[in-house]
């Protein structure tokens, strides 16, 4: 049996759970889904539409707010009871916070950020990116199960998850969590002061990455943006360095955009960036490294020096 750990916050299912279900269904092993929290009936009903043998509710007042200690303790107990062969989770920030501790407590392997599954005879292999997506690795887990797997956001299609003929039966697990043993005391989630720029409304975006090399070079990106009637944005390292404000950041920790045109200048295409822009209608990538992952999702690519290509582009647009 493969156990999928659903993710919810304040009673709302994280859509990435459907992607983990789709991946789990690909294993060909019967799927069960665990929903963890304080009162998660609605979430269990929603995810129970999936083709799964059972939805297990793991409820405790101590699990109302997410904490690593609470989740590890409850899930270690659940997994001890259920004895799944595999445990699948979406590779979200929350999963990244507790899943390594959970797998380590049970002394089992955790394979993170998986983008595809392969079955070769009796060996199950997992494909995961290494070197920031420049290479893929085929990986196997060794030793007794359960083996833990987190699936990269967007790698498996949520709408590819099979729905069941009828709702999956639900059951409440008897798991007790000692609230006093939870060492992390969380406060309510919040958003930073209102963002000055809403890039999601931009029709065209010119986005810069490490390839721009220095703040003093931003001018050519600004000039290109002006020539295209585009907003200027950036990948995370540019905002980390303070070259552009944080509200210009595209990616998993910044804004998600889907403009008509997205021009990526000197952006290699780490997954954290791609998730924020891959829905763009037309993607142009200009990068000196022909192996940069950004070219895998671009419609048009120029493998060349942006300091030569961009001025030529501006000249061409202004003709």
């Amino acid at each position, binding site marked *: 049996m493969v156990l999928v750990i659903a993710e919810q916050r304040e009673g709302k299912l994280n859509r990435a759970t459907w992607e983990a279900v789709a991946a789990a269904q690909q294993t060909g092993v019967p799927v069960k889904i665990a929903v963890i929290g304080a009162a998660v009936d609605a979430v269990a009903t929603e995810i129970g539409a999936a083709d799964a043998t059972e939805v297990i509710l793991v409820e405790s007042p101590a699990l109302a707010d997410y904490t*690593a*200690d609470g989740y590890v303790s409850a899930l270690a107990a659940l997994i001890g009871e259920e004895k799944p062969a595999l445990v699948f989770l979406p590779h979200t*920030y*929350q999963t*990244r*916070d*507790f*899943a*390594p*501790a959970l797998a*380590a*407590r049970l*002394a089992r*392997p955790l*394979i993170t950020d998986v983008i595809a599954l392969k079955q070769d005879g009796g060996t199950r292999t997992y494909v*995961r*990116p290494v*070197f920031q997506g420049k*290479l*893929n*690795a*085929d*990986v*196997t887990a*060794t*030793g007794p199960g359960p083996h833990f797997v987190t699936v990269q956001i967007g790698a498996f299609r949520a709408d590819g998850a099979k729905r069941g003929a009828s709702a999956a039966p639900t059951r409440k697990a008897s798991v007790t969590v000692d609230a006093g043993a939870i*060492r*992390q005391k*969380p*406060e309510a*989630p*919040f*958003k930073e002061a209102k963002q000055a720029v809403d890039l999601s409304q931009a029709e*065209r975006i010119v986005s810069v990455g*490490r390839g721009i090399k220095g703040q003093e070079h931003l001018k050519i990106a600004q000039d290109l943006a002006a020539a*295209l009637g585009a907003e200027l944005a950036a990948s995370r*390292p540019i*905002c*980390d*360095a303070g070259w552009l404000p944080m509200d210009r950041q595209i990616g998993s*920790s910044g*804004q*998600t955009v889907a403009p*008509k*045109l997205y021009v990526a200048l000197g952006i290699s295409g780490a997954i954290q960036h791609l998730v924020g822009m891959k829905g763009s209608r037309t993607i142009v990538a200009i990068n000196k*490294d*022909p*192996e940069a992952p950004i*070219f*895998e999702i*671009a*419609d*048009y*690519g*120029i493998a060349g020096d942006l300091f030569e*290509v961009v001025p*030529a*582009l501006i000249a*061409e*647009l202004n003709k």
Partner: protein
Amino acid sequence: MKIAVCIKQVVTREWQLRINDSKTWIRDQDASFELNEPDAYALEEALRLKEKHSGEVVVCAAGPARAAQVIREALARGADRAIHIESDALASADPLTVAEALAAASRDEKFDLVLTGLQSDDQGFGQVGVVLAEKLRMPHATIIMEVQASEPSGQGTLRVKRELEGGWFQWITLPLPALLTIQSGINQLRYATLKGIMAAKKKEIRKVTPAAPGERSQKILSVYFPEKGKKTQMLSSGPSEAARELVKRLREEARAI
């Protein structure tokens, strides 16, 4: 506050990756190396906490002899001393093995705080920090963007700002000793000064030989370049022709401008 910072040496981003003959890892004999960038932010945060609350910053690196390069660099930036868990096998080991090596070497140090980067630029497990916390029985919090320490040492607590997805954040309070994984961009990095580089030469690097690792919990069967999407049209002429061709296609084919 006695702070450990776990750092990793990784190949530089600019190095053109080449795959080894057995196709199981890169050919790193002729690669150039650097400090894993998220770890540089963890180190900077440790140095700032020490400046504020006094104490000691100890860098811990698990890796082959060549990792001495990034240890020296961390010492030059201001760390007080280092622990080098030296083993060739740790260059591409699984996260449980790396965390076990770090735990064994740091347990007796009784650190108040352990910092790591949120993940490495090469393997990208995003696991070693959290597994290390579990092995040291410390509470942890990940992807941290701000650290507030209430007391310099002892029975203090930390209040940390954790990054969630989509622009959300959350404050968490946890007791010391604790482990945090640090998000890139939490601070502005300092670089080594000449004075720092000279001072680093006199600082202690304690070498530790790790216990023989058990069987790997996960194994790489092969590494390879991902297949390019078929749809990408590469415009491969010189800059001005490529620019002309691109503008034409954006106007006529994609109708994006």
